[in-house]
């Protein structure tokens, strides 16, 4: 799974502008592949290089999701900036994603 952005670190970023995402997927199932593509597209359009995505493959790390309360795949969690936001699905409803992430007004 190649993701062009940096692998996220668990330490909180000092850059207030940087948005940190965890994206839970299940291997290469259609929904998961779709979600990664959709997220990258949104990020590139709205956040440029001010984002980090950590992709968590539940097939590889099955027990991690249990402790983090994630059930369905794909699930997107925005850890920062606060508040934490959670979106379920392949992120194909772009407007809903932008709305939740508060990005509607600033397309660049």
């Amino acid at each position, binding site marked *: 799974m190649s993701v062009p952005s940096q692998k996220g670190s668990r330490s909180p970023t000092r850059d207030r502008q940087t948005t940190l995402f965890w994206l*839970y*997927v*299940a*291997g290469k*199932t*259609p*929904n*998961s592949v*779709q*979600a990664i593509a*959709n997220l990258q597209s949104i990020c590139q359009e709205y956040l440029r290089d001010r984002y980090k995505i950590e992709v968590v493959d*539940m*097939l590889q790390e*099955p*027990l991690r*999701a*249990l402790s983090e*309360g*994630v*059930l*369905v*795949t*794909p*699930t997107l969690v925005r850890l920062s900036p606060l508040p934490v*936001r*959670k*979106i*379920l*699905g*392949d*992120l*194909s*409803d*772009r407007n*809903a*994603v932008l709305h*939740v992430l508060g990005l509607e007004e600033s397309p660049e």
Partner: protein
Amino acid sequence: MNRKRIAPQPQGLEKMPTGIDGFDEITGGGLPRNRTSLVIGGPGAGKTVFAMQTLVNGARRWNEPGIFVAFEENSRQIIANAASFGWDLETMEKEGRLFILDAHLSADDIKSGMFDLVGMLASIKAKSDEMGAKRIVFDSIDVLLTFLNDPVTERQEIYRLHEWLAQEGPTGIITIRLAGDNLLLSQHYGFIQFMADCVILLRHYLIERVSLRDLRVVKYRGSKFEENEFPLIIDSKGIDVTSFRSKETKGKVSNERVSSGIERLDTMLNGGFFRGSSVLITGAPGTAKSTLCAAFAEAACRRAEKTIYISFDESADELVRNMSSVNIHLAPHIESGVLYIYSENTESRSSEEHLMRIKKLISEQEPRCLVIDPLSVMIRAGGRISALGVAKELLGLTNANLITTVLSSLVEGGESMVETSGIAISTVTDTWLDLSFVAQGGERNRALSIIKSRGTRHSNQVRELILSDQGVTLTDVYTARGEVLMGSLRWARIRAEALEKELTRAEIERKRIDLELADAETLARMETLKRQLEAQRAELALLIAQQKVQEEAWSVGQKDLGEMRDADKEF
């Protein structure tokens, strides 16, 4: 891992016990192992408890770890309430015998596009492998479906879940909540039902304000099962199912006699009740039904026979106190453990619930004698099973275990033909004693009669039952001129008769003495006369002797004189 593909053995597929006795009985061993079962029911029907209990029992009794996937918010609440069933889920989780996954899905979660359960199932699979889970519950799937909210996704994910269960091994239990009492499943549920190997329907409803639950196995692939509805209760230990199976009431027969606790009654019954038989005592309030019950119980305890006294009217303390006033002492037997008094004020329980409790008590205590005082409270409680059904079931059980059983039943005025009065029940009991009040001469007295007693030559006379601080006794009643007299009237009549007899006796005695006296007098007179006669005879004899002497004297004298005078012969 592909255990499911193994062809069923000729004896049938392997079963996984739920540990819910009645259920395992109905299904001949439990749920189909390594397959998927559905538990369908309305709110409060007991789905979650059923599922959780199966996990807890599996972990505790058969060392089979389990996973509980809680979709429903309510199921978390039930987990919190589990302690009230005596389930220490926290400890079980720490020991790795149980894992509860809080999979509460909020409808408020924002959705964008398609999603699936692949990740979750992968996670659960990892957990399952880690702990070696043998049982897994998904509670409840309808919450998940509502959440998915798309017919295609729903079907797809149900398939996924089913396939996952089929492949991964643990025996699956999926619960589905139905809204309302409608048992017609929507298309979806029909589809789910089709996939499951075993489908269990739970119902919860009210009849005359009494809460009732029941369970029915709708489908069980590859296995025989009981198709009827079975009463289900939820009590302090969780779910219990009673398998009222139509057993043949071919009971055991004993010729041994067991004392009723009242000597005279034993005599009337030709030695007492038969061991393992059932006795019904009917009567109006206050006719001493409880006293008769207690007398029987005390006698049983004296023979050191374990006895259960189920008292619905009085608490154990009240019963002990009240009975001591008629010289029936139960307290020492409670202390020694021979007597177990179970008292409960249970207006809101159904008949089935009572019956199940009694069954439990019997299996726990293994009594030889049982008293239920009164049975009428229990069967009046309501429920689908008729009073007669309850009695039959109960007596079938006691008879099979040779438990001599005494049941009392309240009969109120004008109600004697109502089924619950005990009259109907009398048809299934072996002996029927009826207690009544007879009002006469301004007082009420208790009367006992044996209406029937199978296999026993018995007295058909009415006896008066007398309670005193000396105990319970039966007395003959006074029957004369076609009426039965009791109490003071009987006493008065007996006194009057005794007096009359006494007078007659005295009169005869007096006459006898008179006659004896007369006799003696006559005899005495006879004696006197005899003496007189003798005296007279003696006098007569003397007189004759004197006469003779005189005659002689005279003849001698004349001759002498003639010689002396030398009288010539020619004078």
